[in-house]
């Protein structure tokens, strides 16, 4: 297990390095000078040169990349002050320390992702189990068609609809907002309730269908029948034997969906105007704000890798064959 962790950590670092290198050099492959955005309508070559120097864009690209990497581990000095490690630089557009900005924004995105994850796992897997248990009945058909409808939903469509119904016209639910959990647990929960629900919808449907089909498959497994044959109750067999087996393919898909989950959280933030990483990512790309783009990319990638590691560990927990081989 330890060896596995070490191997994975090295892999993750290498992946992060490649992602940063590709992002960095891709940024400069775009035939658009970030300084132009800061230069605007009446841009003269002189004004452009000043901005280049201000942003550190006057140095060769590899040197800039090297400085960026060094900054992450050793910190750097900027006009607005020292930026201590881990330093992802300062934003082109507002001179804010990128790392501080991300640290400030990340809790929201994390709350959204994890909360959404929990919601769609509970709702999706639960609905799938109920459908599987009642296979072929009206319940099953309702659940299956509902999941089909929901699959075709999009956050940016559903979001405004839910807002219109439950916030603007009835006022039943709180308008999405960000309250740090440290300030008020109930404020945090109520503020994120709608985003969680809306965001989970696109995933829920998928997990309902998957949970249903893997569960039906598992219920036909011989060891499930064997467990029944030795007198275990149907409920016990359903959860301990069949469900346990159906988790394996679900965890596999979950591992693949983590990127989408993060992306979904970002779209959700933008839809509901929540100040998280997603909004930051969008703005940084529009503003051609390289340090911010890099920071968002690397931190998001790091978290996806971390989540992947957790998912892999879950495999081992669920299936002893993985653990012991």
């Amino acid at each position, binding site marked *: 297990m330890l060896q596995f962790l070490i191997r994975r950590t090295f892999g993750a670092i290498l992946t992060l390095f490649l992602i940063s290198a590709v992002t960095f050099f891709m940024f400069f492959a775009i035939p658009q000078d970030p300084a132009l955005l800061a230069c605007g309508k009446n841009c003269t070559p002189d004004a452009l040169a000043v901005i280049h120097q201000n942003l550190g864009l006057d140095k060769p690209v590899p040197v800039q990349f090297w400085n960026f990497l060094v900054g992450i581990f050793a910190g750097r000095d900027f006009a607005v002050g020292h930026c201590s490690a881990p330093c992802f630089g300062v934003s082109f557009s507002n001179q804010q320390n990128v790392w501080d900005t991300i640290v400030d924004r990340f809790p929201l995105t994390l709350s959204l992702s994890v909360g959404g994850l929990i919601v769609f796992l509970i709702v999706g897997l639960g609905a799938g189990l109920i459908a599987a248990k009642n296979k072929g009945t009206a319940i099953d058909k309702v659940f299956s068609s509902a999941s089909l409808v929901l699959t075709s939903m999009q956050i940016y469509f559903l979001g405004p609809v839910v807002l219109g119904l439950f916030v603007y016209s009835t006022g039943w639910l709180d308008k999405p907002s960000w309250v740090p959990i440290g300030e008020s647990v109930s404020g945090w929960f109520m503020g994120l309730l709608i985003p969680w629900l809306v965001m989970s919808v696109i995933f829920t449907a998928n997990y309902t269908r998957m949970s249903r089909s893997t569960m039906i498959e598992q219920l036909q497994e011989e060891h499930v029948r064997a467990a029944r044959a030795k007198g*275990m109750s149907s409920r016990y067999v359903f959860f301990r034997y069949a469900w346990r087996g159906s988790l394996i393919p679900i965890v596999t898909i979950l591992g693949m969906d983590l990127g989408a989950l993060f992306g979904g959280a970002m779209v959700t933030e933008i839809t509901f105007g929540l100040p998280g990483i997603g909004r930051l990512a969008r703005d940084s790309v529009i503003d051609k704000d390289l340090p911010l783009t890099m920071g968002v990319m690397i931190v998001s990638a790091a978290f996806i890798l971390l989540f992947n590691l957790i998912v892999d560990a879950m495999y081992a927990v669920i299936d002893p064959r993985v653990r012991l081989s």
Partner: protein
Amino acid sequence: MTTLTKTEDAPAPTDPDAFLSVRDLRVHFSTEDGLVKAVDGLSFDLERGQTLGIVGESGSGKSVTNLSILGLHNPQSSTITGEILLDGQDLTDASDKELEKLRGNKMAMIFQDALTALSPYYTVGRQIAEPYMKHTGASKKEARARAIEMLGKVGIPDPKNRVDDYPHQFSGGMRQRAMIAMSLVCNPELLIADEPTTALDVTVQAQILDLLKDLQQEFGSAIILITHDLGVVANVADDLLVMYAGRAVERGSVREVLKRPEHPYTWGLLGSMPRLASDVSEPLRPIPGSPPSLLNPPAGCAFNPRCDYVDLVGGGRCTSERPLLPAGRGSACHLEAERKQQVFIEKIQPRLG
């Protein structure tokens, strides 16, 4: 159809000593394509300490019969009629709760492939201990001790350590032993063994069969042994039931059925089996054709499309009238008794050697 109205088997008198008595069992599944009559009017008896072999090709209804004894069919998609009397209690109308109490306790089952029948997610010990705790109310500790004891009994070396292993850490033969240990943990009075040795190589096969015999002697259990291997039956079983298309076509003691088989299907089964004594140049003769569709079985005798002796029966009865299985020793075939004897002696026996 020109069939006669009377198509039911003769209702055999209930054997007063029978521990398990199956009467006119019918198991029908409704599918999208129509009604599948997986078992259609089966009756047999089994006494304590006896072993009944059931043979037949796949799809003949052997496994369905046994699963319905255990009550493991989905009630939503299947209809079960007839009687299954276990020690006087009718299982067909027993509640789920009652069945749960009996399963793994009074009656248990050994599955064909222990690799799929044991859950990969729990230790062997836990899987053996589970039913013991459930049925005897034993504590975890007691159940664990019992599991170790059972593993030892079925011949697993070092059971104290192996009890915490997962099934995938066992070899095929050991898994099968563990499976048997799991079935026997509550000393069941009825043991259904569904092809218990098919997945194993020959030496292990013999060991497992010996093990079953020993255990039967120790506990006095009744055993139903389902197999398609007549060799296994010859070694272990007392009585034999040959099934075809959801019905019993021949019944008798092992000796009787193997020495003087009466049904052309039984002849075919025997002919398709290799024997040590037979001439190497004599080719095996598989039964021509394939098992009939249970959705739409042939009219008359279900075996008629594959039978070589339809011509010996007059009046086309084979394709119009279903032959009945008499109670006790006998076979469900329109051939007259002397004809059967004559054909067996003249045509079949020489081939069997």
